[in-house]
C-alpha cells in the first residue's frame, strides 16, 4: 500500500478524535520482502532524547513522509550503529493509536471524559486562567511548574522558558534520579566528571557498583567486554543479581545500602598492606591522613563483613585486586545512592579511588556521570519576567521564582500559603506514576484549580489533568542532545512533519505568548516567531563549537561529534573544589550538616512491621513510564511481576504466579509473583513502568524520604527510593 503524506493527513483530519487513526499497515512491508521499495527513501539524523546514559545516535528512514524504521547511527562512536530494544520500537511510539493527537479538555478532571478542542481554545483557556490567577493573587506564583526528564533535548528547556516569560512562578526544583551521588562527587572533586566510557577498554580491573548496564547502558558492554578480552576481571556488587551481574567474574550480593561499609573494609585492608598510592593521595587531596586515622581507629574487616554480609576473604580479595591491578575502573550506579546514606556511600567509594591513585587515570576513575558537554545557551529558557512581575523573595533577598522540592512535590505544593498553588503545568514529567507516595500526589492534584500537561500519551498524570497539549516526538522536531555518560553530541533533525496537531514545547510557548499578549499586552515575554531549526541554531556558542571542532551546527548533520576532552577525567589534577584539591575532608559537606570525612553513616533499618525491602529499579522494557505501553513492548513483556526469593515466598505461602499484596502504612499494590534466586530473601523487586491499560504503579508504598545529599548542587536532596519497606501476603 502506498499513501502520500498528503492523503495520509487528509485521512486523519477527517476522522473523529479518539478513534484509532493510524493503521500500522502503513508501515508493514510485504512480509517476505524487507525492502520492496526503496523509492524516495530519505534518511535523517536523530538522537534518542530519553533520560538514559546512552543517548543513541539514530538514523531515521522516511518514505513519502512516513517514518519507516529507525536504526543506529554508525558514525556515533559510542553507540556504534546499534540501538537498544526501546530504540527499535520508535515507529510504534510515533504512530501509536494511543498518542494524544489534539489539545483536549477533560470534564470533570479524572472522569476520562475528554473532548477535542482547538489550539486556540486551549491557549485561550490557559492564558485566561494564568491572567485570572495573577490578578487574584498579584503574581504568577500560584502557578507551579514541574518538568524533568521526559525529553532531555536542549530546545525542550523552552518549557522552563514558557514559565519564565509569564512571570515568577513556583518551580519544582531538584532531580529525583541521581542528586546524592552528584553532591558526593561535588564535595570530593568539585563536580561529577566521569571518564569517557569508551576508555573502559583500558581498565585492567572493573567494579560495577550497583550498576546494571545490560538494561540501562547497554552500549557500554562492548567496551567492558573488550577490557575483559584483554584480561580485565569484572566484579559486580549489587543486592540484585541483575543481567549485568550474571556476566560478572565475581558477583557480590551485598546487603542493601552498605556499599560504603564494604569500601571502608577494603580501604582498611589496602592500608594495612600499604598498597596506598601515598604520592597521589597526599599531593592531590586534603584530609587524606585524617581519613587514614579514621580507618585505623574505627574500621575492621570483622565489622565490614558483618555489615555487608560479604565474607572477609572476599573483601580481602577485591581490596588486593582493586589496589594492585592498575588501572582499575569503578562505575558507580545511580541505584546505590537512592538511600538515606547513599551520597555518603559514594563519597567513601570516591575515597577508595583516590587512595589507590585510580582517579585521573585512563582505564580508571570513579565514574558516575558528567555534564561537561552540556554548555549550550539554553536560549529557549532564558526569558525575562514581564515588567512589574512580583516574585518570591528568597533567603538571599533576591526576587525570583519560588522553588519547592521536586522530591517532595505533593507535600510542598500543598504547603504553600502565600500565595497557595492553584495551577500546575507539567511538561516532560509524569509525577502521577513516578513520584513517591502516589496517594499524596493524587490528593494534591485533586486540590488544584487547574492542571495543564504536555505529553504524548494519556498517562497517569494526564488522567489527572484538565487540559492535555499533544507533544511532538523527537522525529517531528529539531533539537540537539548531549549525554551525561558518553562524550558525544548529536543534532536531531525533523524527519517527519508533526503528527496530528502535536507541537513542541517551544511552539506551545510561542502560541501561549501570542494569546497572552493579545489578552493583556506585555503579559508574556516569550518570542512569537522562529522556526524549529532556528531555535536549535540559537543553542550553539563558540564554546560548544570548539569542544566539538565545528564552526556551525549544521556540520553535525554529517554526523555526531565527540567532545575534545581527555579520555580520563581529572587527568590535569585541577579539581573544582574550594581548595582546588580532592576534598577527602570537605568543609562544605560539614557546613551542610554532613560528615566532613567519608565515614560510615548508618543505613535505614527495616521497621518491625515491614521487614521486607521493596526495590523498584529501572525496567528493561521502558524508560520510567515511557515505551512499556507500546504494543511491541506489551508483547515482549505483557505484565509486571515481583521477584521473590523462594525462601521468602515459602514463608508467606506464595507460589509462582500467585498474586501478592505488597503494603505498608502508605498504600498497597498487587503484583504477580515470580520466584527467583536472583534476589535475596530480604529483598523483593519489581521494575517501575507504565503498562498499557493498567494501573500498575510501584510508588504507592514509597515514602518521600530524602536521601542524604543533593541540596548542594541540585537544590534538593534526592529520594531514598530503595529504602522502601513493606509487608507481603498472598492476595
Amino acid at each position, binding site marked *: 500500500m502506498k499513501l502520500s503524506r498528503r492523503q495520509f493527513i487528509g485521512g486523519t483530519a477527517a476522522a473523529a478524535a479518539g478513534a484509532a487513526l493510524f493503521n500500522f499497515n502503513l508501515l*508493514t512491508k510485504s512480509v*517476505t520482502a*524487507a525492502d520492496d521499495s526503496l523509492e524516495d527513501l530519505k534518511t535523517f539524523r536523530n538522537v534518542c532524547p530519553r533520560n538514559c546514559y546512552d543517548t543513541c545516535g539514530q538514523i531515521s528512514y522516511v518514505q513519502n513522509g512516513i517514518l519507516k524504521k529507525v536504526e543506529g547511527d554508525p558514525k556515533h562512536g559510542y553507540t556504534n550503529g546499534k540501538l537498544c530494544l526501546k530504540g527499535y520500537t520508535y515507529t510504534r511510539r510515533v504512530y501509536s493509536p494511543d498518542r494524544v493527537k489534539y489539545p483536549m479538555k477533560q470534564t470533570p478532571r479524572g472522569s476520562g471524559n475528554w473532548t477535542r478542542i482547538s489550539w486556540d481554545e486551549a491557549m485561550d483557556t490557559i492564558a485566561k486562567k494564568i491572567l485570572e490567577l495573577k490578578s487574584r493573587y498579584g503574581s504568577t506564583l500560584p502557578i507551579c511548574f514541574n518538568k524533568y526528564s521526559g525529553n532531555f533535548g536542549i530546545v525542550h528547556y523552552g518549557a522552563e522558558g514558557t514559565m519564565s516569560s509569564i512571570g515568577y512562578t513556583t518551580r519544582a526544583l531538584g532531580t529525583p534520579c541521581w542528586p546524592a551521588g552528584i553532591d558526593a562527587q561535588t564535595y570530593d572533586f568539585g563536580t561529577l566528571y566521569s571518564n569517557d566510557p569508551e576508555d573502559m577498554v583500558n581498565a585492567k580491573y572493573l567494579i560495577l557498583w550497583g550498576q546494571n548496564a*545490560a538494561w540501562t547502558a547497554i552500549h557500554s558492554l562492548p567496551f567492558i567486554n573488550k577490557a575483559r578480552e584483554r584480561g580485565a576481571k569484572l566484579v559486580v556488587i549489587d543486592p540484585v543479581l541483575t*543481567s549485568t*551481574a550474571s556476566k560478572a*567474574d565475581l558477583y557480590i550480593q551485598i546487603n542493601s545500602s552498605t556499599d560504603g561499609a564494604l569500601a571502608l573494609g577494603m580501604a582498611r585492608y589496602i592500608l594495612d598492606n600499604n598498597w596506598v598510592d601515598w604520592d597521589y593521595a597526599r599531593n592531590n587531596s586534603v584530609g587524606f591522613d585524617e581519613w587514614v586515622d579514621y580507618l585505623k581507629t574505627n574500621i575492621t574487616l570483622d565489622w565490614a563483613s558483618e555489615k555487608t554480609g560479604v565474607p572477609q576473604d572476599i573483601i580481602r580479595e577485591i581490596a588486593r585486586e582493586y589496589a594492585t591491578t592498575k588501572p582499575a575502573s569503578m562505575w558507580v550506579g545511580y541505584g546505590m545512592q537512592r538511600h538515606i546514606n547513599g551520597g555518603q556511600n559514594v563519597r567513601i567509594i570516591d575515597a577508595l579511588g583516590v587512595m589507590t591513585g585510580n582517579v585521573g587515570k585512563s582505564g580508571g576513575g570513579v565514574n558516575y556521570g558528567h555534564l561537561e558537554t552540556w554548555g549550550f545557551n539554553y536560549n529557549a529558557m532564558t526569558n525575562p519576567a514581564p515588567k512589574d512581575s512580583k516574585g518570591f523573595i528568597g533567603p538571599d533577598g533576591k526576587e525570583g521564582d519560588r522553588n519547592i522540592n521536586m522530591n517532595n512535590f505533593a507535600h510542598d505544593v500543598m504547603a504553600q500559603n502565600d500565595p497557595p498553588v492553584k495551577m500546575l503545568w507539567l511538561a516532560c514529567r509524569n509525577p502521577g506514576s513516578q513520584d513517591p507516595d502516589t496517594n499524596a500526589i493524587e490528593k494534591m492534584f485533586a486540590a488544584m484549580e487547574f492542571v495543564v500537561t504536555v505529553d504524548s500519551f494519556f498517562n497517569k498524570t494526564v488522567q489527572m489533568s484538565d487540559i492535555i497539549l499533544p507533544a511532538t516526538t523527537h522525529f517531528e522536531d529539531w533539537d540537539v542532545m548531549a549525554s551525561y555518560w558518553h562524550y558525544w553530541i548529536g543534532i536531531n533533525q525533523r524527519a517527519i512533519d508533526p503528527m496530528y496537531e502535536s507541537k513542541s514545547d517551544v511552539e506551545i510557548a510561542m502560541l501561549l505568548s501570542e494569546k497572552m499578549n493579545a489578552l493583556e499586552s506585555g503579559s508574556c515575554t516569550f518570542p512569537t516567531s522562529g522556526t524549529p531549526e532556528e531555535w536549535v541554531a540559537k543553542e550553539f556558542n563558540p564554546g560548544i563549537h570548539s569542544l566539538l571542532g565545528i564552526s556551525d551546527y549544521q556540520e553535525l548533520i554529517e554526523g555526531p561529534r565527540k567532545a575534545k576532552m581527555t579520555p580520563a577525567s581529572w587527568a590535569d589534577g585541577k579539581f573544582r573544589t574550594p581548595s582546588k584539591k580532592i576534598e577527602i575532608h570537605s568543609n562544605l559537606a560539614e557546613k551542610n550538616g554532613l560528615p566532613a570525612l567519608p565515614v560510615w553513616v548508618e543505613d535505614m533499618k527495616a521497621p518491625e512491621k515491614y521487614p521486607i525491602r521493596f526495590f523498584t529499579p529501572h525496567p528493561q522494557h521502558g524508560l520510567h513510564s515511557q515505551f512499556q505501553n507500546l504494543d511491541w513492548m506489551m508483547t515482549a513483556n505483557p505484565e509486571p511481576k515481583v521477584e521473590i526469593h523462594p525462601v521468602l515466598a515459602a514463608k508467606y505461602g506464595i507460589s509462582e504466579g500467585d498474586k501478592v499484596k505488597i503494603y505498608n502504612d502508605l498504600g498497597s499494590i498487587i503484583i504477580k509473583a515470580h520466584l527467583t534466586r*536472583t534476589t535475596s530473601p530480604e529483598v523483593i523487586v519489581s521494575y517501575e513502568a507504565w503498562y498499557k491499560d493498567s494501573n500498575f504503579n510501584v510508588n504507592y508504598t514509597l515514602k518521600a524520604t530524602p536521601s542524604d545529599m543533593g541540596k548542594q548542587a541540585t537544590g534538593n536532596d534526592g529520594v531514598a527510593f530503595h529504602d522502601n519497606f513493606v509487608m507481603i501476603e498472598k492476595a
Partner: protein
Amino acid sequence: MTKQLGFLHNSEKCVGCQGCEMACKNEYQTDATPRWRQVFQLREEDYSLPTRMFFSMACNHCANPECLRVCPVKAYTKREDGIVVHDHDRCIGCRLCLMACPYDRPQFNLDKKKVEKCNLCYQRIDKGEKPACVAACIPEALQLVEINDALDQKMGVLKTIPGLPGPDITHPAIRFIGPKQGKQIRRD
C-alpha cells in the same frame, strides 16, 4: 542444497536485552503479536547457580523442516543456502505448520489470519548484509554461521540446551554456546 545457513547463539555473551527481537520487528514493521524472533530465559534450576541466562531463537531453518513437509499449499521452500522461506501469499492460514514445528516458530497473525516467520533476512543476505537481528546484537552474542561439521567439532558448540526439544526431529540450523557462570557471593 549447497550449504546450510543458520544461527550460532552464545548465551555466555547474551544479556537477554531483546534488541534482536525488536530489531527484527523494526526491520519488517511486524504487527504487535507475532514474534519472529524471541528471547527466552533459561531456567535457573537447570544450572548450578541461579543467574539470568538467555537464548534467542527465530525460525531454525531446519535441515528437515516439518513446516515444509506438512504445508498443504507448498508455502514453504528451502533455498540452496538452507534458508526456509515462507511465502505469505500462498499461505492459507491453516496452521498445520504451527503444530508441526517443535520450536513454535511459525507465528500466526490473528489480524491477517495467516502465518508468518523469520526468513533469515534473505534479501539482506543476498546483498551481503547481516540479518537485522545479528546486525543489532550489541554484545555480539548472535551470529550468522554455516552449519557444518567444522562448527560442530568446535569446543563448546552445542546442538541443544536444556528445555529445548531434541534436535533429531528436524535438525535445526541453530547452535549454542552455553552460559558461563562466574563466582557468586550469595546471601541465601
